[in-house]
């Protein structure tokens, strides 16, 4: 399943099309949802602006080594639409998990409908009418639609065996599916549904528990732009019915349009609350990121003009879009940003350039010479390095120490007669630890215990310890705290200034514009355009990302 979406700035998220039919489906869903909700929510009309439906008091949640949420308080009144914004890692997900009863807060009270709880259980959360529609759909793909909608609440047959009454299950699901405008039946396996259809199942699930608070977690990030409006209309209608909504989105202008109040999270704390008349894009950004912008501007200045083309792909075809050849060249001394929607084939291109995947056609050239990559080892031997998207799965070995991770790609150089020299490893690692400012007790520390930013620095360190000619970074700052982000931008710039060709894949629009010297934009497997510095704008990147011409 492909998720479509490009991050616009630190918090603005704009997405574009999948297929027209899906979009129409979702729009229909939205309207059905609306009418469906009207059917049973009459009771709550007229209670708005009285007692809050939900309130949180001083909620704190820690994970080992991390405070995910600290002293957080908020309240949601009936019929109120709360926009909840914050950067990745700000604590939104933790908050959602607490509201869903999946995780227990360390301290704090959650009051639902006047009843105070120390914690919510999943049952209590559902029972009090809190419904979730998640960005990443939480469906069991191996089960059918009806089983998903009533998961954990299956109607049972009489008798001691707790057998599921399948006929009734289907009978109960059918009207819900009708209300969301589904064009599939209750016994369809979820694995055969499209993304938009799966979203319908999620919404039907929310309907089935007679929701009083609907929490939409990035609901629009997988919707085409045109359909977003309709979803926003649904939110407004929910509100009119006295149902509360928490709307989580990176698309700030949508939040601006629909929210009665905006709650901003930063580093696990309440950064601020904006009343309706104070909601605007700049205020939200300021609360969310603070000093961020300046750091990025600094990283953007290039010390030298770009050199010759280092690595180029000529009519390369990847598994993402096997029928679409890609041409792209990255030059020495530049940071080339590679933007595009999620699923546009950027990661697949990076994997081919690094030799992990075999190119299905076309050719690669390094400094004008043909290059054949049979494996990542070949790429590494040629000085082409990749900082992969999934740090924990592919970037580093969490169980190895910092020093062992750093020396891994160049281990023979840290060995005498093929016996590893721990002291040589330590020397290299110490140097990198100092240069990159890796915060850890020692280079013998297990990388699994480090924070995301420091782990990413270890990934960078292992390549910087060798001699990069081409450095490919796939979402290098995803899930990394703000301070470390700025440092990583600085490192990328330093690499480029040293003559390295830097290719940075990023879905963070502000990062792409702030850090790159040129921006190449991918659309459905092909480079739809390359922007030079003077053409940089979010609008232009977006237009190219959806396959249109820039202004």
């Amino acid at each position, binding site marked *: 399943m492909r998720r479509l979406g490009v991050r616009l700035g630190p918090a603005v998220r704009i997405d574009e099309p999948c297929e027209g039919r899906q979009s129409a489906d979702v729009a229909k869903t939205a309207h059905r949802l609306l009418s469906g909700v009207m059917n049973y929510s009459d009771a709550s009309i007229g209670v708005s602006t009285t007692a809050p439906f939900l309130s949180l008091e001083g909620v704190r949640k820690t994970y080992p*080594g991390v405070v995910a949420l600290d002293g957080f308080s908020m309240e949601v009144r009936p019929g109120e639409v709360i926009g909840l914004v914050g950067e990745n*890692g700000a604590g939104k997900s*933790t908050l959602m998990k607490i509201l869903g009863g999946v995780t227990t807060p360390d301290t704090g009270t959650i009051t639902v409908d006047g009843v105070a709880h120390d914690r919510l259980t999943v049952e209590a959360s559902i029972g009090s009418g809190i419904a979730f529609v998640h960005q990443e759909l939480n469906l069991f793909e191996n089960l059918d639609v009806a089983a998903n909608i009533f998961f954990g609440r299956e109607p049972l047959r009489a008798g001691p065996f707790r057998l599921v009454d399948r006929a009734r299950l289907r009978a109960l699901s059918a009207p819900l599916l009708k209300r969301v405008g589904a064009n599939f039946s209750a016994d369809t396996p979820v694995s055969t549904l499209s993304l938009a259809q799966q979203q319908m199942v999620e919404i039907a699930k929310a309907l089935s528990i007679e929701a009083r608070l609907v929490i939409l977690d990035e609901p629009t990030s997988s919707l085409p732009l045109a359909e977003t409006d309709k979803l926003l209309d649904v939110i407004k209608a929910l509100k009119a019915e006295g149902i509360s909504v928490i709307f989580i989105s990176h698309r700030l202008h949508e939040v601006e349009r629909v929210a009665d109040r905006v709650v901003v999270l930063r580093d696990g704390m309440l950064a601020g609350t904006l009343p309706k008349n104070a909601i605007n894009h700049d205020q939200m950004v300021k609360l969310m990121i603070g000093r961020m912008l300046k750091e990025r501007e600094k990283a953007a200045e290039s010390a030298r003009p770009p050199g010759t083309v280092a690595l180029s792909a000529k009519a390369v075809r990847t598994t993402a879009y096997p029928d679409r050849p890609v041409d792209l060249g990255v030059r020495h001394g530049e940071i080339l940003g590679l933007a595009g929607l999620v699923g546009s084939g950027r990661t697949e291109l990076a994997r081919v350039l690094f030799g992990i995947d075999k190119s299905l056609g076309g050719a690669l050239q390094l400094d004008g010479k043909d290059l054949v990559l049979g*494996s990542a080892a070949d790429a590494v031997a040629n000085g082409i390095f990749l900082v992969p998207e999934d740090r924990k799965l592919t970037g580093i070995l969490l*169980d190895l120490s910092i020093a062992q991770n750093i020396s891994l790609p160049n281990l023979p150089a840290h*060995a005498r007669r093929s016996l590893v020299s721990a002291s040589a490893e330590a020397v290299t690692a110490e140097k990198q630890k100092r240069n990159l400012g890796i915060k850890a007790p020692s280079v013998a520390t297990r990388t699994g215990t480090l*924070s995301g930013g*420091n782990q990413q620095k270890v990934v960078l360190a292992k390549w910087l310890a060798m001699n990069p000619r081409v450095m490919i970074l796939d979402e290098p700052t995803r899930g990394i705290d703000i301070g470390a982000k700025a440092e990583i931008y600085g490192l990328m710039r330093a690499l480029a200034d040293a003559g390295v060709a830097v290719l940075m894949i990023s879905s963070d629009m502000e990062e792409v514009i702030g850090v790159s010297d040129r921006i190449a934009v991918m659309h459905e497997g092909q480079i739809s355009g390359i922007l030079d510095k003077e053409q940089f704008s979010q609008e232009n990147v977006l237009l190219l990302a959806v396959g249109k011409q820039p202004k």
Partner: protein
Amino acid sequence: MSKKDLGLLILILVVGAVVAIINPRFLLPINLANTSNLIGLFGILAIGQAFVIITGGIELSVGSVVALLGVLFVDFIATRGMAWPVALPLILVLGGIIGLAHGWLITRLKLQPFVVTLCGLLIYRGVARFYTADGTAGFAFGQNFPELEFLTAGRSYGVPNSFIALIVIAIVMWVVLHRSVFGRYLYAIGKNEEAAKYSGIRTGRVVMAAYVICGVLTALSAIYFAMYTRSISPASHGQFYELYAIAAAVLGGFSLRGGEGSLIGVILGTVLLQELQNLVNLLGIPSSLNFAVMGGVILIGVLVDQQWGVYRERRLMLEATRKGTAGAAAE
């Protein structure tokens, strides 16, 4: 020596002491020599297995390979008149080829190690039985190979040479596993093969090499077993030996998920297994209970190890939470 290994060593000594007290014959030189001979034979096998397990793989065919290569070795030198200094390396090469074939199927054709080696288990057993027409391969009366017999079944200063061979191999393999570049690659691949690949390691070759090492060591132990039993009936020779090897590795702290375990651990695991076998004999426990005793002890050992791990993790978590904050909030 890690704490895990130390714990295992203490367990071995305690069990040994208990057995010695109940039945002092445990400490007779003849008993010790016999046991250490078996430790040598099974130890070589287990080291090979350990190299595969560390990559996250498994080699189920070793018992059948012991039978097949044993049959071939005896046949080569006893009936075909091949000089043993020729036959011995030839058998090692054959073992290497079997390992290479397994490694190739696993890394290039992406078959699961369990499946590949399970098929090997069946195939080699069948071939061995076919080769001798289900007869027993053995030496004719009066056939002697003094040098070979000395090296395999002989003793130096009362110590079985098979045990000495194990010590030598263990030292070499310890260096390979714990000090060499290759050994580091093995651990890295066992921990996270994808990340190793993304670090530019040719993971396929490394894994294949592990299977080759296993094949060669299995071949060597096949020769030792052949010279120890001196007659091989291919239908039963070496049966369940793969399980002895895997059990030794697991007892020695190896994780079947890969990336964990030490060479000392697998040796100690072998020692403990043989000690238990010996215990069954010496304490007059019906030998039919042999496997049950082993299974029980392994289960208890793994359980204790697991619970200890859970306990330690919980303690670490508590400490980390107490130390508190710093770093990004987890989403």
